[in-house]
């Protein structure tokens, strides 16, 4: 809870800091803010409290996910150095909007009441609509913002309808009370069908937020059009918060009606895995490939939800940590390359292994991690998800399907590695990398390898 207040206050302070003549102070300032939030958040560890008349719970689950999302933002921000150098006048607003949307994400992992879930989703999304359109003169950015906004508010409406239905059936917004109220349902057929309809509609609404198929159609376009820096935030923090909120909702509120939503969730998961992995194969743009790859990773995270047992939360936590570290590194390198080459295609990476060994190495490690190769975090991410799912032997077919699709994933992840190391450089001039950005990339690479060697650092947390 302190992290929510601190993030809001820091966001406002940061807006005022934007009046400063010297824009160089903004980045260190916001990094210090996030470090403070990260530290203060950890103080709540093992100290479960509820706030706002039982609308928000800060338990270990919320603290762990808040920590991961804060750290993700912290490690993402150094890649915005280029905005400062270009003298972008709206920089303070960008940082503040990132902090504000992080408030929404924190609410989404700690909500105890569906009102809080709705507010959290909206705080997160409205800031992202603005950031998607932050490149005001670019038609692609405009299109991304408009699509994201129209689709996002459309699915907000759908989610609200689901919440209203669930309220109609149970008479409460509190997720624990909803979970308890299901025992009394079923005698009245009308209320029961209303409840099931509500669950399904709510599942559709949240599936949209985490870009699960068949509600993924906005994701490639929006991720492609949004400025790369904000795409990285969208595909890590927004997805982590969405999946964490999804699991919390299912575990706390709808565990008793497992049979009602299980087939739908399996269908969504299978579709997401197939669409994400097959869609990524046919892309020529690396950025668009990463968009489809983020859809496929939403599918792997949903597999932990399908498993729905005591190791689900741990595997979601580990998967989002591994996925976030690798994705930020990939988008960070993409942003640096894109700034020089003016292109996000695979060809832009040709010969990067010779001109910028550091960038090429970080990119390779993050691609290995996203592909799930051993000794990287991504391998254990997939390992935990698959082993959680295999506790239910009926789900073996889904694991087999996911393993086959993960092998497909290696094909498109390695295309960029091949371009970097085996293609002649189109442009011999090395990409300019600020020393602080390079340091962040090294940290991300070390994190990815560290989690691949010692997964217990995160997997033993919950």
């Amino acid at each position: 809870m302190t992290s929510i207040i601190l993030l809001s206050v820091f966001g406002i302070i940061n807006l005022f800091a934007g009046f400063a003549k010297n824009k160089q102070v903004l980045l260190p300032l916001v990094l210090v803010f996030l470090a403070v939030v990260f530290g203060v958040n950890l103080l709540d560890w093992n100290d479960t409290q509820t706030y706002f008349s039982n609308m928000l719970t800060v338990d270990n689950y919320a603290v762990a996910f808040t920590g991961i999302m804060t750290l993700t933002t912290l490690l993402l921000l150094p890649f915005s150095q280029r905005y400062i150098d270009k003298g972008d006048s709206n920089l303070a607003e960008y940082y503040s909007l990132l902090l504000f949307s992080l408030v929404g994400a924190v609410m989404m992992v700690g909500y105890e009441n569906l009102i809080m879930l709705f507010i959290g989703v909206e705080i997160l999304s409205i800031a992202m609509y603005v950031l998607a359109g932050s490149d005001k003169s670019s038609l692609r950015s405009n299109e991304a913002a408009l699509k994201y906004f129209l689709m996002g508010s459309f699915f907000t409406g759908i989610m609200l309808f689901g919440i209203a239905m669930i309220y109609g059936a149970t008479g409460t917004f509190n997720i624990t009370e909803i979970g308890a109220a299901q025992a009394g349902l079923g005698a009245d057929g009308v209320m029961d069908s209303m409840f099931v309809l509500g669950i399904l509609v709510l599942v559709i609404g949240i599936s949209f937020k985490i870009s699960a198929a068949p509600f993924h159609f906005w994701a490639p376009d929006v991720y492609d059009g949004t400025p790369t820096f904000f795409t990285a935030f969208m595909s890590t923090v927004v997805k982590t918060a969405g999946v964490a909120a999804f699991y919390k909702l299912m575990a706390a509120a709808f565990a008793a009606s497992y049979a009602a939503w299980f087939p739908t969730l399996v269908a969504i998961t299978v579709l997401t895995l197939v669409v994400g992995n097959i869609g990524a194969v046919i892309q020529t743009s690396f950025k668009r490939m990463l968009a489809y790859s983020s859809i496929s990773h939403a599918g792997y995270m949903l597999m932990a939800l399908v498993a729905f047992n005591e190791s689900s939360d741990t595997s979601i936590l580990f998967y989002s940590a591994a996925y976030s570290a690798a994705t930020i590194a990939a988008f960070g390198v993409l942003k640096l390359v894109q700034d020089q080459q003016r292109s996000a295609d695979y060809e832009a990476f040709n010969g990067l292994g010779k001109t910028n060994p550091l960038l090429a190495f970080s990119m390779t490690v993050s691609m290995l991690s996203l592909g799930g190769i051993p000794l990287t975090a991504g391998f254990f991410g997939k390992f935990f998800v698959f082993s959680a799912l295999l506790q239910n032997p009926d789900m073996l077919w889904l694991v087999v399907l996911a393993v086959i699709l993960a092998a497909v994933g290696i094909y498109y992840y390695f295309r960029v590695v091949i371009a970097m190391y085996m293609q002649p450089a189109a442009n011999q001039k090395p990409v300019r990398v600020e020393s602080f950005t390079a340091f962040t990339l090294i940290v991300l690479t070390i994190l990815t390898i560290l989690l691949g060697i010692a997964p217990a650092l995160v997997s033993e947390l919950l």
Partner: protein
Amino acid sequence: MNNIPEVIRTIPLDYYLYFSAALFVIGVIGVLTRRNAIVIFMCIELMLNSVNLLLTAMASYRGDTNAQVFVFFIMAVAAAEVTVGLAIIVMTYRNIRSTDVQLLNYLKW
């Protein structure tokens, strides 16, 4: 004058349900078929308001104020969404001189 929850309860809850569902479906169909960004946006507002109506009716029938508080939250969030959404639509209009969503097709596959 009767108090408002009693007035609301003079009509059966089912009617509110069908009416809200109809409004909601009209909104969904509007979003899916219209091409003008502002009309799409109006249809989304229609969807949100149908939910508001449903929540108010249910709250009156249950004698519970939680849902009415939720309605205020929805209104506040919808207002925030309007400001951001209209700003995005104006920004797009400045660039392409139109609010037709089908003109925006720079991003494909």
